[in-house]
């Protein structure tokens, strides 16, 4: 990644709407051919960011550089970039073929050439050739996704932007399309910039992820870095089910005042005095014996959820709810409402500041 040249550079990008600042001075470099995902909850400014990159909004301050050229004032229709919209924005009065050919028609490409290119893209995206003349409003959700992507590829952009196109798709199909999209990324070698509110989705597809919160880019890293080393409580919670508790450092041990317990800490960041301890469900195990883990808590088994290969247990320690896991083969039976031990090793936990 580091050897690749930057295709997109943001320098102090800021966007204000009246008195509201949607994006606060973001610096970011995206490399040629990278799959970069911006993740954030709604209102985090991620859509505004993407719209500025696409040329549909102009930044209030800062510069956008495309291959070293400042493009702040270059309108969307002159930029070598293309966006797949959340609503997909397929033209309802046109067929699948006409939709895909739209950017070519705008460039006055001859009809025969247009059709050949459209059919080629349809084949690449696994759309049956018979769909060429089909009305686009008659296509299913997944087919419409593919048409939208084919249309964007027909423009032959250097960078493709995606504004949560999969958010309205049901879970199973979304999982398939995520993988397909990543395959298309490999096949085309183009730079993809994707935004989503689902870090899970980002993890599956991305080379790097940027997490946004309230207009700030709070962490940028590979999926592995984001997963194993979140730099704040916000990022760690964003990943999904996590066990998280306030702690303070006291003489090399972590103290939880709420639980009245002391824990062995993982590597302590310099200058850390108090913050939160994060333990992922797969690192928090329901134990048979106290000596199976370095840190142990006693709680009550309140409920269990079968996840397939693993089983999750809801364990209550005082007022606090913990989610622990076990492999299916080691499932506990008939233990609801009884006392259980949960524990983790220090190296499997993460310390974050607030």
């Amino acid at each position, binding site marked *: 990644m580091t050897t690749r040249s930057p295709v997109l550079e943001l320098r102090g990008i800021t966007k204000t709407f009246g008195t509201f600042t949607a994006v606060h001075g973001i610096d970011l470099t995206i490399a040629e051919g990278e799959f970069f995902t911006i993740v954030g909850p709604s209102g985090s400014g991620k859509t505004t960011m993407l719209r500025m990159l*696409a*040329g*549909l909004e102009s930044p209030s301050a800062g510069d956008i550089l495309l291959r070293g050229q400042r493009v702040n004032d270059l*309108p*969307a*229709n002159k930029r070598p*970039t*293309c*966006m797949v*919209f*959340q*609503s997909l*924005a397929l*033209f*309802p*009065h046109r067929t699948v073929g006409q939709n895909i050919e*739209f*950017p070519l*028609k*705008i*460039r006055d490409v001859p009809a025969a050439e247009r059709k050949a290119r459209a059919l080629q893209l349809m084949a690449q995206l696994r759309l049956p050739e018979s769909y060429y003349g089909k*009305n686009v*409003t*008659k296509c299913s959700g997944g087919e419409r996704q593919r048409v939208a992507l084919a*249309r*964007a590829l027909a*423009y032959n952009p250097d960078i493709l932007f995606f504004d949560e196109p999969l958010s309205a798709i049901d879970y199973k199909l979304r999982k398939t399309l995520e993988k397909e999209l990543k395959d298309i990324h490999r096949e085309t070698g183009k730079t993809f910039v994707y935004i989503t509110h689902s870090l899970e989705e980002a993890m599956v597809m991305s080379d790097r992820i940027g997490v946004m919160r309230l207009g700030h880019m709070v962490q940028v890293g590979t999926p592995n870095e984001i997963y194993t080393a979140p730099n704040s409580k916000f990022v760690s919670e964003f990943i999904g089910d996590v066990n998280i508790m306030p702690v303070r450092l006291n003489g090399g041990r972590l103290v939880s005042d709420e639980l009245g317990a002391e824990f062995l800490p993982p590597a302590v960041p310099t200058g850390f005095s108090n913050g939160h301890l994060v333990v992922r469900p797969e690192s928090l195990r329901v134990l048979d014996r106290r000596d199976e883990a370095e840190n142990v808590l006693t709680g009550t088994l309140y409920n269990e959820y079968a996840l397939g290969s693993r089983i999750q247990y809801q364990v209550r320690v005082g007022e606090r709810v913990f989610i622990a896991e076990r492999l299916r083969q080691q499932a506990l039976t008939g233990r609801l409402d009884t006392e259980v031990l949960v524990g983790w090793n220090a190296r499997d936990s993460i310390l974050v500041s607030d």
Partner: protein
Amino acid sequence: MSPAERAQRWRSALLWAWALAVVVFMYLPALSLLLASSTSSRYFIFPITKWGFDWWQKTFNSIEIHILFKTSVSIALIVTVIAVTIAFFGALAFARYEWKGRSIYQKIVLLPIFFPQSVLGLALLLWFNTIGLELSWKSAVFAHLVWIVPVVTLVISIQVYSFDPALEEAAYDLGASRWQVLKEVTLPVLFPGLFSGALFAFLLSWGNFPLSLFTTGADTTVPEYLYSKMVAGYTPGVPVLGTVSTMIAAVLFLGGYGIIVLRRRARS
């Protein structure tokens, strides 16, 4: 027969009777018009003693009537073109774009619809006189527009509300110029709304009496002629003209509706 079945039967019988009553109530007057035109006598006598289509013949051959139609059609066509053009942009401002003062605009633009037309007609007459405009069918075009543009704006706005603004952005992002976006995306997607708007404009202008009465000057439209003949000098030519005028409106309306349905079907 169970009580539930009997109740069900009664209910559907009542429904049918009600629907029939509504249809009769609405269409009997139009039918009476046809009846009244099918007489050979000079005056309107009921029951009709001498049936015949003499008055249809006379009406169709009358040069005066030809001029009437020409005037009415000219006004309606010009009103349609101007009204749809203005209302298209008006509807974009009404339903598409967020701008300061939009909510005031949305109310002001609809106000002329609620203004009594005869008062509006008189007001326009005074205004035209003040600015020294010579009254003719051309001045009636302006008068019609005052009332019809708001209606057509509303009709087109309904279509614009269901328009996804991302369509325009997508086309623009795919390299289209502003003009190409309008031509390739906005206009075709909004076409059903523009078409209904045009139908409304034509039909409302075609049937308008109060505004024409005050503003056509020496020219006469079909509704004006019908009114003056009923006030003085009735002949069975009046119901003939009334029937023809109604039929033209009906054919335009049903034909227009048919075109929209066919277009929709052709697409699927």
